[in-house]
């Protein structure tokens, strides 16, 4: 059976060039970067070369890039690190209702530890309002964390506007760029952010590696201690193959972005139009234009996401319903609910996220596959 992978926001296959880079550091150049012998020095070189590539990819200096075990760690390192380091100056954190759990749950845990938390609402497109944000900033606000692009609905937030406000008001600003990296321009100085999270496996690098940008000179402190790696910002022997892969992946992502962006936007729009034209009671979730070029989220009324996913899966199509991370959960996506979509309708969300491997044929195959699935499931639904 022909397989169609439409779940690139959940994870991506490692790009062949990235895999090649990764494998060099697995068995051949395998040293510990802290070792002073040649095995160690070669590993160190690989780590620093990757750091430069990641830095270049986001417009940062290499010393401002810390490697982590993934987007989740980058997020909580950013948030906890700023929250604790600035506790003397204030304990108020601002985030949004549509953040990834890595951000939202970290903020909520801090709330339990005594921090004050404001969760900004979003509009029907999942968009945070900079005006709301400006109003929410108080004397004791030390951190704003708003994602660059949403993983569930693809909406791109007005990060540079928020960044300008944060800077004017002297509040540190973190953005989770896990989904935007490689898909739209990500530059820490244009976005005016102080911290920024990246995850490897969303950009064709392997799982288990990520990066956190920490602007030079900001008040941040490490969470853990150990061997002094990453200039004491993140202890533990460096994941050299993963780091080398991440460097390569960022390089490729930035190099190919413009072209891929165009190509994916075309496929995305064809997919959306194709479904809306052939199936009734379907709506697009998320912003119609301020959205990731590869991101489709369609809500089919009267039916349930999981059933669609499994039907599609049986026909070789991998899709998701809300975040992969939360698909184990039973509640409809907190993102859709925050956008004001009713509970039972939110259940019918189908997320299709395109990527490098997808072609127009994939879209066409999907478009002919979907109507009978919806028909069949609706026939089973007590709501019809």
């Amino acid at each position, binding site marked *: 059976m022909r397989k169609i992978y439409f779940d690139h926001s959940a994870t991506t296959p490692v790009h062949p060039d990235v895999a090649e880079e990764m494998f060099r550091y697995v068995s051949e150049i395998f040293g510990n970067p802290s070792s002073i012998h040649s095995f160690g020095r070669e590993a160190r070189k690989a780590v620093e070369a990757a750091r430069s590539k990641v830095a270049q990819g986001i417009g940062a200096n290499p010393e401002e890039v810390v490697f982590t075990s993934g987007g989740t760690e980058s997020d909580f390192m950013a948030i906890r690190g700023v929250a604790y380091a600035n506790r003397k100056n204030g304990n108020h954190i601002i985030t949004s209702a549509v953040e990834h759990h890595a951000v939202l749950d970290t903020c909520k845990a801090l709330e339990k530890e005594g921090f004050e938390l404001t969760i900004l609402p979003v509009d029907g497109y999942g968009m945070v309002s900079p005006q709301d944000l400006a109003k929410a900033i108080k004397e004791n606000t030390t951190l704003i964390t708003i994602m660059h692009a949403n993983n569930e609905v693809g909406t791109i937030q007005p990060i540079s506007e928020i960044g300008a406000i944060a800077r004017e008001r002297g509040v540190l600003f973190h953005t989770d760029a896990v989904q935007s990296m490689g898909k739209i321009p990500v530059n820490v100085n244009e976005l005016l952010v102080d911290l920024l999270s990246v995850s490897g496996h969303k950009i064709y690098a392997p799982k288990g590696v990520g990066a956190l940008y920490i602007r030079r000179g900001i008040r941040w402190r490490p969470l853990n201690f150990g061997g002094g790696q990453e200039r004491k910002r993140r202890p533990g022997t460096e994941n050299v193959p993963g780091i080398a892969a991440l460097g390569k992946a960022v390089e490729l992502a930035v190099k190919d972005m413009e072209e891929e962006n165009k190509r994916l936007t075309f496929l995305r729009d064809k997919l959306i139009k194709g479904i809306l034209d052939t199936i009734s009671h379907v709506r697009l979730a998320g912003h119609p234009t301020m959205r990731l070029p590869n991101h489709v989220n369609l809500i089919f009324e*009267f039916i349930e996401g999981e*059933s669609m996913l*499994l039907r599609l899966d049986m026909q070789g199509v991998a899709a998701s319903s809300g975040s992969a991370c939360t698909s184990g959960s*039973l509640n*409809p996506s907190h993102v859709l609910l925050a956008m004001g979509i009713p509970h*039972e309708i939110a259940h019918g969300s189908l997320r299709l996220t395109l990527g490098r491997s997808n072609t127009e044929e994939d879209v066409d195959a999907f478009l002919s596959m979907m109507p009978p699935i919806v028909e069949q499931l609706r026939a089973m*639904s*007590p*709501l019809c």
Partner: protein
Amino acid sequence: MYTDKVLDHFANPRNVGELTDANGVAEIGNPTCGDITRIYLKIEDNIIKDIKFKTFGCAAAVASGSMLTEMAKGKTIEEALKITDEAVAEMLDGLPPQKMHCSNMAAEAMQAAIENYKEKLGA
């Protein structure tokens, strides 16, 4: 995560649909997830002659509806009332822990439909 049995009943659900001549009908909403199952019963001489279901729910809900209706068909009301959600799950070779509640819905909807039948009978 799902057993082959669940996937089979999900892919080819038995007894899906409505019964125009049903004499017991009920709909149950799942308090855990907000999903819904509706059961149609055709009872004759205390025996479930026919049973159909519809569900707005996950694959476990569909498979549970399919399995429960298979299990209940031909049974007496008393026998049918003894079918527990655990029994349904077991016949499906198990459900993932966080999906155990989905099998409730089918069993409960059938119990409510039997209740509905009895009420109508009493009325």
